[in-house]
């Protein structure tokens, strides 16, 4: 009965958004022309794939660098602590667009990083790892003190404590904020168009310049980003449920 009622509510929700969309479309009174935009679909798919690749490569490095930043912040070596803190403050306090311009044109030049894809990964990783280090911190600090004490008193070394006691408990609690961060990461790739990386947003802007079908282009963008973010959100929710069962 509960199962059946859930499907009724899902149906109502879909109907609500569909009607809302139709109403907006009707009031907007725009006649869509997909012919010109659809001609560019190989380029669009390529741009979308590039965004997907940028997202996952950056996420992979962000998870590692974020962990390094977290341990630096927890370190007993004061300068490491300060380096991590200053880095995080810089990333939190600067708009991503400003970082894109500064890191690509100024810092990138200083270090001779000419490859745009590599530059884009470095920029997104830098920005996201600061946030991810804070997500780690929140998750680890939420672990009750008694878990650390028990691990210590039974002779676990630091690595074993993290590996067998803390991290398995932290993973579950950091998944929800990580979903949010990942969705932000996907959307923030659009700002890389300022350094002319051929990701999804920049590709569509190029297509729009040729077709003049701007509205269609933005609709494709919205759908394209949702195709990435919705499965991510569902996958993480699935993992959360799995962990709930395991734990």
């Amino acid at each position: 009965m509960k199962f059946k009622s859930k499907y009724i509510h899902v149906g109502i929700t879909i109907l609500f958004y569909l009607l809302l969309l139709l109403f907006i479309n009707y009031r907007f009174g725009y006649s869509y022309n997909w012919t010109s935009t659809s001609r560019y679909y190989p380029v669009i798919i390529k741009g979308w794939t590039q965004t997907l690749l940028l997202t996952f490569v950056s996420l992979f490095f962000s998870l590692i660098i974020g962990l390094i930043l977290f341990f630096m912040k927890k370190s007993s070596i004061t300068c490491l602590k300060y380096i991590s803190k200053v880095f995080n403050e810089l990333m939190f306090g600067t708009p991503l667009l400003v970082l894109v311009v500064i890191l690509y044109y100024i810092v990138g030049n200083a270090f001779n990083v000419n490859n745009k894809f590599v530059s884009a990964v470095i920029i997104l990783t830098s920005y996201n790892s600061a946030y991810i280090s804070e997500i780690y911190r929140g998750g680890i600090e939420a672990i009750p003190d008694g878990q650390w004490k028990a691990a210590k008193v039974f002779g676990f070394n630091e690595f074993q404590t993290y590996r067998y006691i803390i991290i398995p408990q932290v993973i579950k609690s950091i998944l929800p904020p990580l979903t949010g961060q990942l969705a932000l990461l996907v959307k923030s790739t659009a700002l890389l168009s300022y350094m002319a990386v051929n990701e999804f947003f920049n590709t569509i802007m190029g297509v729009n310049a040729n077709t003049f079908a701007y509205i269609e282009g933005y609709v494709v963008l919205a759908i394209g980003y949702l195709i990435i973010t919705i499965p991510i959100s569902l996958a993480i929710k699935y993992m959360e449920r799995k962990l709930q069962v395991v734990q």
Partner: protein
Amino acid sequence: MILKLENVKKKFGNQLVLDNINLSIEDHHIIGMIGPSGGGKSTLLRMIAGFESITEGDISLNTIDVKENEELLHKKCGFVFQSHNLFLHLNVLDNITIILEKVHKIKKDEAIKTARLLLKQFGLIEHIEKKPDQLSGGQSQRVALVRALAINPDVLLFDEPTSSLDPVLTYEVLDAIIKLKDEKKDFIIVTHEIGFVKQVADYIVFIHEGRLVEHGDVSIIDAPKTKELKNFLSKVFSWRH
């Protein structure tokens, strides 16, 4: 058990919690640490267990220097906390076997065999697959006791193991601890259960306001020499009656 404390001091910031504790105990098996709350007895026990730093002085347990040989001490001592502190993500069996496998390098089969045997002995075998949040307070504390016992420690340390339990669950846990006496296990217990301490302990240590005020065999409970112990016991017993 051999326990030696030499000029032990503990400070939290500027606050002196333990002041110059000196104690030498040999050939006693069960030490009961008693005293008013906030007097420093739990802190002292945690220092003996090696997870609270020693501000000044030396502690050795069964000739193991606590400061020098923390790792060895953790392998030779079992500890039961005030609240069970079981690993929350693991079931009862894994809470025990993970320590045996990862710290004591015992093979998985052997670890499971040891854990099952002890869980059966303490009437917990039917809870083997449960997570800590599915156990009652008394069951959790008994699992914590089995976990401490599974490493086959030379000494077990109990830090007020019944302080968070109701009288029925307290009885359940104390009953489990009494079994250890029958099995000739050495242990140190910090507790407010004076009647229990009198029944099981063969040496009493009374700590009051960070000082070791009186110590000796259990007869000191019936015939306290110091004003502080007299006051403490009269308060405990008047409350009980």
